[in-house]
């Protein structure tokens, strides 16, 4: 159907680079955020949780537009010159999936906290220490939250299209390439890219699931 040539490889690798970087950043920000919301009691907590849950459904094109405005020449961060670079795509995807990872982590960690709270308080664990213990102990259930973020990042087209511009050899990723090839009428190439995308997501998810199951058998 299509040849796995150098250009295709470049597109696949860039897609992985952008999405995995966004997942890494959103995980680093989202897990502490989720842990804080799970453990801390403060005024406005319910509102924050509802907002976070609602943000899970952020439309990618809207995120793309907002990041575009921020990074455009006249925007507040225009001087960084990031627009139409992979960096801009990473920023947009990070914003897009941060609520997903934080909200799902919050749910998992709140369940764990319900089980651990008395024991940890009895042992004298507080605040940061309790949150870190919780994150580490719930690490296998958090894989699910991170995977949901990865799924969203690798599948979305709207945000990376707007802030990346789908520039050949610079910011073209699998989803934008599929959109372009489809509109050009090159359906075999679009389909081929689609299968590669699905295969990658499938492999990553299967691997993570295996890790999770093995860990749960091992650690209970």
């Amino acid at each position, binding site marked *: 159907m299509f040849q796995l040539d150098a250009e295709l490889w470049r597109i696949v690798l860039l897609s992985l680079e952008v999405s995995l970087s966004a997942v890494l950043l959103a995980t680093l920000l989202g897990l502490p955020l989720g842990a804080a919301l799970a453990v801390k009691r403060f005024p406005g907590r319910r509102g924050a949780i509802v907002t976070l849950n609602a943000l899970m459904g952020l439309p990618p094109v809207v995120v793309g537009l907002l990041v575009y405005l921020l990074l455009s020449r006249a925007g507040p961060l225009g001087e960084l010159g990031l627009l139409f670079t992979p960096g801009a795509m990473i920023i947009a995807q990070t914003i897009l999936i941060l609520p997903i990872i934080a909200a799902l982590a919050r749910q998992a960690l709140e369940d764990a906290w319900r*089980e*651990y709270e*008395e024991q940890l308080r009895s*042992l*004298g664990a507080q605040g940061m220490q309790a949150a870190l*213990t919780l994150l580490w*102990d719930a690490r296998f259930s958090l894989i699910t939250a991170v995977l949901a973020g990865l799924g969203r990042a690798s599948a979305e087209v709207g945000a990376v299209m707007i802030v990346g511009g789908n520039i050949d050899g610079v910011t073209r990723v699998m989803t934008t390439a599929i959109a372009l090839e489809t509109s050009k009428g090159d359906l075999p190439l679009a389909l081929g890219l689609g299968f590669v995308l699905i295969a990658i997501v499938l492999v990553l998810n299967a691997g993570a699931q295996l890790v999770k199951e093995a860990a749960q058998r*091992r*650690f*209970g």
Partner: protein
Amino acid sequence: MSSSILPLTLDNVAYASNGQRIIAGVSLSIEAGPSTVILGANGAGKSVLMRLMHGLLRPTAGRVRWSEADPASLRRRQAMVFQRPVMLRRSALANVVYALQLAGVPSGEREAQARAALDEVGLRHLAQRPARVLSGGEQQRLALARAWALHPEVLFLDEPTANLDPSAAREIETVIKAFDAAGTKIVMATHNLGQARRLGDEVIYLQAGRVLERAPIEQFFARPATAEAAAFVKGELPWV
């Protein structure tokens, strides 16, 4: 270690949750020495009373006072073992090491102390086993090892054998006796009268959130002062 954190004084302590009164004005003093057993039927408020003492719950009225004022020091010098032990997803040994770390024990000394505590409860051979795959009885002994490593002045036990079979329960009771022999003050909630007799020196009898009776163990079982306690001892639920 400085002067004792005991006596613990409860001054007209009450606790309510969602408008429902669970503890209704309890005043008592817990002194060092005799093992104290809190007896009462399910729902009498035993667990809540112990959590108020241990500081896991705040009283809605009244005061809980220890003779030590510094909260951090107070926390380090008492421990609690729950009905269902909560183990972290790591090895048995690492669970004890974690408690020692929180207690501020220098990192070089933690492992040796943790191993000594596992020896004490007979879990040496399971030190590297993940804690959460241990049996219920083993997990409860591990919870006791975690407490043992801390050398607490006061050990609270909330129905520590309620979920265990008789032989596992006996092993737990042996360890509790070792705590007592080592000078730790035992405060235990139970509704198992045999266990109360085997481990207790004095009884606090609780019903509907009130202390109805407090007496030395022999006296409580031989001559309960209240009709309700007498009925409980006879194995009847006082309010039916």
